[in-house]
């Protein structure tokens, strides 16, 4: 079974909600995940942030949905860590 363990996203977002509110909203929606946000660029009305989200089984669609609901847009997926857990029935 394939599951996404870690994803690094380059996101453009308005100044408000701020980084704390933005990452808290993601953590509230994606249960059991760990969110790290770093502001990489600040403009007059927007800021570019690098989001590092880690978890056991990350739902990518749900993550992008939360980001867009908070007014952000995913510019690029910079890193992805995916794990394929071996099926217990399969021979080693």
């Amino acid at each position, binding site marked *: 079974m394939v599951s996404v363990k870690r994803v690094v996203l380059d996101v453009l977002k*308005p100044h*408000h909600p701020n980084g704390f509110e933005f990452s808290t*909203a993601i953590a509230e929606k994606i249960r059991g995940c760990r969110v790290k946000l770093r502001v990489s660029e600040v*403009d007059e009305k*927007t800021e570019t942030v690098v989001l590092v989200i880690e978890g056991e089984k990350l739902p990518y669609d749900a993550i992008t949905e939360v980001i867009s609901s908070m*007014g952000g847009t995913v510019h690029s997926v910079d890193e992805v860590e995916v794990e394929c857990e071996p099926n217990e029935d399969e021979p080693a």
Partner: protein
Amino acid sequence: MFKQLGVMLKITRSHGIARRYFVVNGFDGALTMLGLITGFYVSGNVEFSVVHNACLGAAIALGMSGLSSAYISEAAEKQKELRELEEAMVADLGNSTYGQATRLIPLVIGLINGLAPLVISLIIILSLWITHTSALQLITPLESALLTAFVMIFLLGIFLGRISGTFWLWAGMRTLLIAVATATLIFALSPH
């Protein structure tokens, strides 16, 4: 729903605006009632129904004016903010919390702006009505309404003091002074 509303107020930074509207229009309502009642008090021998209906009419007009003016101006402001943000983001934010806030927040601010003077005025009118219907009349209905108006203005001052972090009594006394000055001016300028 209230949590979502809280988020919208937070991201659009509208809670300060809503608070400001509450105080500004609440103060407007209380001072208008004070002015009307002082005018009736100076005139003397005015029928209760005239006082009651004039105050109620003014209260409703203040409420409607507050609701519509704040809604129209805030809707225009929020739409402008959204359009500018969409240009900066190069994205349609209509379905985001921002888009929802642009539609909902002007209505909430309009309600606050309309309800603040209406509720404060109704409290003043209620004191007028209670004293009028009460069997024991220690003071006249107009005096009771005047006293309530002063108390409401003093309370608004205390609320402002809490926001600014200044001493509550001083903040309350400051707004009370404005109310006393208003009433004195009406007394002084009214032909007896």
